[in-house]
């Protein structure tokens, strides 16, 4: 029927994937081999006939009908779906909200006098002033918010004043740092540091 070595070349020809050398080889063979020539011509005609088969289209299936069979347009992606699609962003958003929330709560407390410290035994509070009386020792850090600090004694730690003022008498001795913080970013930064300190404990 057809020479086995030549058949692949014929296929290459019809794939339009044949080199010039192979094409020449094919031509030469076809010139002399009747069986292959017939086979090749049959393939040629078959390809032409198949390609020429008229295209069918369904007049019954209109664009309108197809569009009507589609589900109604999806509303804007609901929040639920957005969360599903962006898990990382959702978590980040929730986290930020919580942090902001807690900051705001803390912020709100600033009008009240707050005294924090590990050892407040000798601390005296009068009005809006926090006293470390002369001769007394505070063993640890002292943090005062929205108030004045008057140090006349010893503080074995840091003193932090937020939105207030600090007065140190000559008899005062503070072994740690004295920090004065005002509202705003300093405060936020301070809070973050405090938070980290809490975690590292």
């Amino acid at each position: 029927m057809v020479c086995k070595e030549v058949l692949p070349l014929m296929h290459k020809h019809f794939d339009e994937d044949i080199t010039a050398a192979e094409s020449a080889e094919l031509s030469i063979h076809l010139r002399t081999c009747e069986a292959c020539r017939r086979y090749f011509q049959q393939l040629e005609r078959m390809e032409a006939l198949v390609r020429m088969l008229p295209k069918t289209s369904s007049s019954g299936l209109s664009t309108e009908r197809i569009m009507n069979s589609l589900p109604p347009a999806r509303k804007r992606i609901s929040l639920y779906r957005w969360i599903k699609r962006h898990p990382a962003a959702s978590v980040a958003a929730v986290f930020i909200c919580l942090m902001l929330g807690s900051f705001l709560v803390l912020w709100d407390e600033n009008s009240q006098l707050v005294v924090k410290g590990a050892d407040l035994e000798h601390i005296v509070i009068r009005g809006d002033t926090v006293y470390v009386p002369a001769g007394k020792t505070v063993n640890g850090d002292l943090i005062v918010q929205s108030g004045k600090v008057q140090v006349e004694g010893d503080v074995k730690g840091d003193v932090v004043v937020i939105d207030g003022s600090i007065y140190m008498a000559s008899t005062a001795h503070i072994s740690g740092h004295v920090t004065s913080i005002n509202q705003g970013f300093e405060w936020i930064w301070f809070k973050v540091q405090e938070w980290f300190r809490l975690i590292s404990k």
Partner: protein
Amino acid sequence: MEFDDKGDEAVNYVEARLAKLSLGGDRRAFAELVEMYKDRIFHLAYRMLGNNQESEDVVQETFLRVFTNLHRYDESQKFSTWIYRIATNLCIDRLRKRKTYYSLDADMSDNSEGSDWYSLLSSNEKTPESHMLLSETQEQVRKAIETLPEKYKSVVILRYLHDLSLQEIGEVLDMPVTTVKTRVHRGREYLRKKLENELI
């Protein structure tokens, strides 16, 4: 991503834009895509399945799937490749569901046991071509394609009736080009044999 020519690239740009608009909720953009492809998809399905009703079902389902999966469409891929893949797979699924007795290897014996039921079905109903005068030869060609074993059918149809390149067919059917080539070759040989009498 290679396009065969600038025209190709331009067409795909339009289609990709329409797809993007559709994803944003623009139904008219999607209707454009439907308009562009419904005939081609029907033509593909009809040659694969042989009857009107199933082909229409496939067209509807194809667009439904495209619509609900727009968010999955990857713009670096040709839109035509994507939609053809959906449609072809739907056709292949249907072909497989039929109880056919095709031998799927390179056995070229004339086996029309399984196809009888369906060719009976399609010959009884009004085909889209019934109002078209098909010459006897063309009728033979149509039948020959219809009886192609499923393996070769999709590649032959995509190659000859939709002019997809071998590379594109590989992408549509998710198979290596070498496999596509083999199947095209076998399909060719099968059709030549089937149509031997018409091809003098």
